[in-house]
Structures are given as C-alpha cells and as structure tokens.
C-alpha cells in the first residue's frame, strides 16, 4: 500500500500541493489527471523523494518514505519515468536499461521491442522508442511502485496505442501503478481509479466512468460558466 497522507508542497510561498491524501493498494492502478499546473508532477516528485513536502507523510507498506533521498526511495522499490524521457544519451540502449544495476537487460528490451537496437546509443532513438526505453528501464528493477509521468506525452495515436498495450502486458498484478496522463482514453483503459488535481488540491477520487459527470471536475477543466 502506497499512502500519501496530507501532503503539502510549497515553492517560494506558492502552494503546489495542498494537503493531498491518496492510498493506492498493491495491484491497484491509479490515474492522476488535472489541468496544467495542477500539481501532478509535483505529486510524483514528492513520492519519488525529489521534492520534500512541507507537511504530511508518505508511506510504502507502512514504512515511511518522507525525507528519504531519491536513491533510497528507488531502492525501497519505487521506480519512475519523467515527463520528457531522461535517458543517458551517451550510453547504449542496453546500458540504459541496466543502469548500473545487476540485471539482465535482454528480457526488458525484448518486451519493449528494442532488442535489435540494444547496441545503439540512446541519443539515436526517436521519441516513441525513447519512451519505450525509459519504460523498460523503470520496469527492469521489478519495482513495487511504478510512477509514470505522461508516458504517452507527445506521441502519435499509434505510438500511444503501443505504449498502452505495452503497459497492459508489462505491469505485474502486484505492482502499484500511478500514471499521470492528459489522455483520458489511456487512463480509462487501464486504471481502476482516477484522482483529479486542481490548483494543488484533490477534487475527485473515483472510477474513470464517474469522472465526466463530476461537477467540480467539469468546473476545473471547462470553467464554471461553460460547465453550467
């Protein structure tokens, strides 16, 4: 169980997250959506240890993650991808998946269809393959928690379909999955639950089917006048 308990984050006095609480059980897939600036990436950063919360706590199976350095959070079983893929461009595709860890990169490269490119430098990959490589790197550590920040961001419809199908194949039933994504079609496809953030606050937490009927969500996305 991943628990985010009353987490607040402020940047130079501006509230990026305001007392956000979430609990994601083992095997559960949570989508996080919201307009730009809602605090979605900040939420992932605070769980991953890249940002320290001003208040609140984060726990994984009861074990506190709050205040741990990002590398310690990673070793506790939390893996992530970034909004723009952060690959090691001067390293090969295979080295990117291994990433200094003692593991066999081959099955993960096969999974994402990059085995034929294992010896290429990561800098040579087009955006769709770069996304798949970053996903393989996150999956390769067999994480307990997988945080994906816009895994389909900037991809074509066909590439988005590839990534969505890949996620369905690759994520094990016990993995806690938190996906930040603008494409609601992707969220609806493999998340049982969706949380909506708006201006740093959680305004909705429920099944994707109930999302479009929620008044606060419509207000946040469309503005009060248009929503009514």
């Amino acid at each position, binding site marked *: 169980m991943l628990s985010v308990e009353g987490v607040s984050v402020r940047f130079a006095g501006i509230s990026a997250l305001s007392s956000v609480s979430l609990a994601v059980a083992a095997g559960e897939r949570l989508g996080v959506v919201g307009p730009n600036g809602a605090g979605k990436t900040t939420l992932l950063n605070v769980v991953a*240890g890249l940002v320290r919360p001003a208040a609140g706590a984060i726990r994984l199976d009861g074990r506190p993650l709050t205040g741990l350095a990002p*590398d310690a959070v990673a070793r506790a079983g939390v*893996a992530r991808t970034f909004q723009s893929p952060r690959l090691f461009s001067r*390293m090969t595709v295979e080295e990117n998946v291994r*990433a*200094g860890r003692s593991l066999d990169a081959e099955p993960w490269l096969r999974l994402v269809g990059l085995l034929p490119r294992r010896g290429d*430098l990561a800098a040579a990959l087009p955006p769709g393959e770069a996304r798949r490589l970053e996903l393989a790197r996150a999956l390769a550590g067999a994480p307990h928690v997988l945080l994906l920040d816009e895994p389909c961001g900037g991809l074509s419809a066909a590439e988005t379909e590839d990534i969505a199908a890949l996620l369905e194949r690759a994520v094990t039933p016990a993995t806690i999955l938190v996906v930040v994504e603008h494409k609601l079609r992707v969220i609806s496809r493999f998340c049982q639950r969706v949380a909506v953030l708006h201006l740093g606050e959680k305004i909705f937490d429920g099944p994707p089917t109930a999302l479009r009927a929620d008044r606060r969500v419509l207000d946040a996305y469309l503005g009060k006048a248009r929503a009514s």
Partner: protein
Amino acid sequence: MSDYAVSLLVRIGVEAFVALSAYLLLVIGRVSFGQQAFFVIGGYAAGIATALYGAPLAVGIMVGAVAAGVAGALLSAVMAPVGGIYFAAGSLAFGELVRVALLSFHYQVPVGADLTGPAGADGFRGVRALFTGGVSATAFMLAVAGLVALTFLAIALLLRSRWGEAMRMVGEDETASASLGVRVRRVAALTMAGAGALAGLGGGLFVHYATYMEPGHSDVMLGVHSLAYAFIGGLGTPLGPIIGVALDIGLLESFRFLAGYRMIVFGGLVMGLLVVRPRGLLDEVAVHRLSRLVAWGRR
C-alpha cells in the same frame, strides 16, 4: 634514445596522470580546475617518504598517491554534493589554497650533512631516490609508460563495469541516476578520491625524476591543461586525455619552429575543437562507431 626524447616521454607520462585525473571527474560531470593541487600533494608526500624517511622509491610513490587520494576524499566531504560552476570554482580555490599553503610549508630534517625537505617558496629539493637507487632515466621512462598503460586499462575496465555505468549516469543526469537508486554523492566522493590519487601518482613520479618540486607546480595552468587534454583527445575513452597530452607536449613542444607560439597554437586548437567537436576527437559517438567497426571486423 636521446635525453631530450626520454625527458619528453616522461613529461607526457607524468602529465597523462593529471589529465586522466581530470578526465575521471569529467566522466561524472565535474569540471575541475584544481587537479594540480593533488599533483603537488602527491609529489611532496612521495618526496618526504623517500628523501626524509628513506622509503624505497616504489613505496614513496605509493605514499604520494595515497596522500593525494586521502586529500581528494577529504575535499569530497565538502565538494561531492556540489556540481556545475560551483564545483569548478571550488576546485580552483582548492588549487590556490594548496599553492599558497605550500609557500609557507617548512618541514626540513637533517639527512646526512644537509637539511632536506619542503622549504616554503624555495620548494622541496634533493629528492634523489631515483638516482641513488641506480634507476636509469630510460628505465624510469619505461616504468612510467607501463604505469600509464596499466592505468588506462584499469579505467577502461572500470567504466565498463556496473560502477562505471553509475559514474557515466551521474555525469549525464544526477536526478535520473538517483531515481534509479544510484548513490550520487558516494559515486562523486569515491571518484574525487580516485582522481586525487591518480594526480598524486603523477606528482610522485615527477618529483623523483626532476629531484624537486615547488609551490609553482600547483599553478592553475597545469589544471587548465589537464582539462584541455581531455577535451582535445575526447571524453569517450580514457585514451582521449592521453592523446591530448601527446598532441600538446609530443607534437607542439617538439616542433622547434613553434617555440614561443606553442600556447597560441594550443589555445587555438582547444577553441577550434570545442566548436566542432565539443567532447573531443574521440567522443562517445566516435568511440561507439569505432567499437562497432572492430566488432564487425571480428565477424
């Protein structure tokens, strides 16, 4: 082989250690203008061990490397979390700190009829273990060349290992590295210690060949050159900095018609290369292509 050629090759070998030292830090994304400090720390420590306390030459040189490595580890306590311009500025300040400290460092003891040891601005003279030990200049040059070759191999193997992968990851993106479980500070600290030891090894070799060392050897120009060597030769392989040293000292200095213009040619070479090949002649892309070519040729 002429005495001039031997001394030129020894100088290439000695400076290769400082260049490899700067290279190791560049691998983890740190630009250091202070590796010359570890060169003199290693030189003084090695000289003290052999000239003042009668340690055998090899032991003295090892003492120099260890002392500089310890200095690197101590500095890393402050500097390991720091990157970018702050690391560059801090390393420059450390280099100057060591140079100025050596100007007032006096530690002389009677050896035979003379007082020997560091004497402030007059430097540290009378480090004669190489010559009293009966080692010829040519044999010493071959030993230095062998050590450079061994060091190159060791670094090449290190960079292919899991630890080396972590170093290269840190050099590209510390945030992504940490998010994959890499202990960035530990990698930086150990690399700083190793880089210090390498520069100190060069210092220990130099002081025994030259028989002296002085605070001026910690001048920032050695640090700037060692960085430039890596940027000329290329950051894709530890062979890069060695090629950089050989190009500068071996080619430019040995062409007598360049006398007086060497620094202008060297500066121009560095500037030109930084524009057309920002990561040097043997950058990661070039090394990758070459290694593929070699693999293809073996089939």
